[in-house]
């Protein structure tokens, strides 16, 4: 399919054929969504037409929802025919906050060739409306600011049937603000309960629970309680039972859980979700229940819990493997369970691995804590400081150019006399990373003051050519 030609998707309603989606090239030529197909063809000569496939679209959207369920939050559902709704409560901090979560999500989808718009708001209704009506990619509405954000949106955003929207427009109501100013009784008499209900949902006056997406492949176990439970010990006991059942089911299918969600249904019809993520597939009940027990204190049982549901939202094949046993060497223990426990508490776990780069701040990269062993270490034999400042700090220096170490330097207001020094170790900029580094040079010196404290200082530039750097001095690290 040629990429440069305008493309539209044609949907059918009865005998009418109309544009249901168009690419940016087509929109630029003046084609609009809802336009008749014949008119579009008349306007643009070499227009590409593709028949709409709603069933395939729905299936793709469901796949996307399942992906988001694994990646983002325990509560994800398909919203209408063209969107997803994600309950980010308690999940946003894992991605660095709400703004980073949505921008990351939109970027991730763009990487997959999808154009997406996302909005975060207090209620499902508000987020739904903002994502569809604003022309910006990501919107984050601060808590309790929904009213201000949605008041000017058109009533199309309200998830009302098309006839109702048409009828309201006839009455001269165009925006959410106008609609909410209308008296309720005549509105309900004329259009049924829908407009009032949607408004209440939009402003968060009535609860709108999101029923998370489930597929037959997901391994799920649940327990209903005739008497609501609330004591932490009781919850722990039933969590253990559920985990046992879940691991038995996983074992039947030869699977191991990577992510488990515990949904807690309370008697007042609200829900709470706990998510436990694992670095490697696991179906051993011990570590699994430990991960969930760890967070029981965060459960608020309210008036009691009437149902617990445990789902393995992300499972991977897990094969039993015989461990090679040697009688002489003691086995180095697998620390994956520890990584899981700490990771689920919100700590950032990582290992470091060498990078072939002479620039100190680029010579270390973080890898996942459970990544296979790299086996390599830094080949450099030059002394390196054990603490490296994230940002090199300016120092005032007295030094002979071009290649003598400093005689005295002042760092953080303290003047230090250099007794011994080593250097320079010249490090060149990496022009393949940034063109500005084409000529950049740093000359590193190890300096030792009268007290024996050793520092790593450098001069930006080679001491002769101003093209190579500013010739200012910086302190970059502290030796032990």
């Amino acid at each position: 399919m040629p990429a440069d030609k305008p493309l539209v998707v044609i949907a059918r309603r009865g005998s009418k054929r109309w544009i249901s989606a168009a690419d940016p090239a087509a929109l630029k030529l003046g084609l609009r969504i809802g336009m008749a197909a014949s008119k579009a063809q008349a306007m643009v000569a070499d227009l590409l037409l593709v028949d709409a496939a709603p069933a395939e679209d729905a299936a793709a959207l469901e796949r996307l929802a399942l992906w988001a369920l694994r990646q983002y939050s325990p509560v994800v559902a398909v919203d209408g025919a063209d969107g997803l709704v994600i309950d980010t409560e308690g999940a946003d901090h894992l991605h660095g906050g709400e703004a980073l979560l949505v921008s990351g999500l939109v970027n991730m989808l763009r990487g997959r060739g999808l154009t997406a718009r996302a909005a975060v708001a207090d209620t499902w209704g508000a987020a739904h409306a903002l994502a569809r009506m604003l022309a910006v990619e990501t919107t984050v509405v601060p808590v309790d600011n929904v009213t201000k954000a949605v008041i000017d949106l058109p009533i199309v955003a309200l998830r009302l049937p098309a006839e109702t929207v048409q009828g309201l427009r006839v009455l001269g109501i165009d925006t959410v603000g106008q609609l909410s100013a209308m008296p309720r009784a005549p509105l309900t008499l004329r259009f049924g309960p829908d407009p009032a209900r949607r408004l209440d949902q939009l402003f968060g006056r009535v609860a709108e629970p999101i029923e998370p997406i489930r597929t037959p492949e997901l391994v799920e176990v649940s327990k209903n309680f005739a008497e609501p439970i609330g004591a932490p010990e009781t919850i722990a006991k039933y969590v253990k039972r559920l985990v046992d059942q879940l691991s038995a089911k996983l074992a039947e299918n030869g699977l191991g859980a990577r992510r488990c969600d515990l949904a807690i249904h309370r008697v007042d019809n609200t829900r709470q979700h706990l998510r436990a993520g694992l670095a490697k597939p696991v179906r051993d009940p011990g570590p699994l229940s430990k991960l969930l027990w760890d967070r029981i204190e965060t459960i608020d049982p309210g008036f009691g819990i009437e149902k617990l549901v445990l789902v393995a939202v992300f499972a991977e094949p897990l094969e039993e493997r015989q461990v090679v046993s040697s009688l002489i060497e003691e086995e180095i223990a697998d620390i994956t369970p520890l990584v899981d426990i700490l990771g689920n508490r919100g700590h950032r776990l990582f290992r470091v691995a060498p990078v072939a780069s002479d620039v100190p701040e680029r010579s270390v990269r973080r890898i996942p804590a459970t990544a296979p062993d790299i086996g390599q270490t830094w080949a450099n034999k030059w002394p390196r400081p054990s603490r490296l400042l994230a940002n090199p700090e300016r120092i005032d220096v007295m030094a002979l150019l071009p290649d003598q170490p400093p005689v005295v330097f002042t760092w953080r207001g303290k003047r230090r006399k250099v007794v011994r020094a080593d250097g320079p170790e010249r490090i060149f900029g990496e022009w393949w990373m940034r063109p500005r580094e084409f000529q950049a040079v740093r000359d590193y010196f190890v300096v030792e003051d009268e007290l024996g404290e050793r520092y790593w200082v450098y001069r930006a530039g080679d001491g002769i050519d101003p093209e190579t750097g500013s010739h200012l001095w910086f302190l970059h690290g502290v030796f032990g």
Partner: protein
Amino acid sequence: MANHALNPMLAELRERVEQLEGGATRARQVLPFGVAEVDRALPGGGLAFGALHEVAGGGGGTVDGAAAALFVAGIAARSRGKVLWCMTRPDLFFPAVAQAGLHPDRVVFCESDREEEALSAMEEGLSFGGLAAAVGELVRLPMTASRRLQLAAEKTGAMGIVLRRWRRQNEASDYGQPTASTTRWRISTLPSERLPVAGVGRARWLAELMRVKAGECAEFEIGAPDAQGRIDLLPTTRDGADQTARWRSLAG
């Protein structure tokens, strides 16, 4: 310790006390420094596994803890198994630690936002079992917290090392407060080893053993860990000819 052999009665008594304490159920293991003078000052002839140790820097090292981190890295390098390194300020430059013999594959870092979280992560690591050592870079170490760490370490036999580093140098007076740790060290930098040419030689430290359970305090002048994490005893040398002469005699 040497005086054990001198007084068998005392040794037996100590053994019975240890049994009462419950520590004797597992054979007490130690990690010797490989330097006779240092090991002699430590009960059991080395740094005990299943115990908590405290290390801090002196002078400017109270804030950056650079020398203390290398000292800890040298200890961890000579142990066997994985090491958990908990911290809140991720400024450890691993190439330097790798030069002290600690392989990057052996160290799992745990970065936390708050000090208390780092403490809880360290406790979890110690009570997990299967780790050689759990290192925590902490500002405060109250008695209760240190007691918890010590008990967790006793239970599994992992070595707990708290690397104390403060925000400001004058806060370091906190280091005198009692904690439940088995040993307490302070590592201060000394002028580096003299070279016959201009340059900076092997780093030298003053390692003060400020507190040790069932032992005497001591001070050592040591050389920074080599590529296998081993320290060396480097006695003080006066500035001047004797050092050069010694070096010449070694070379010649």
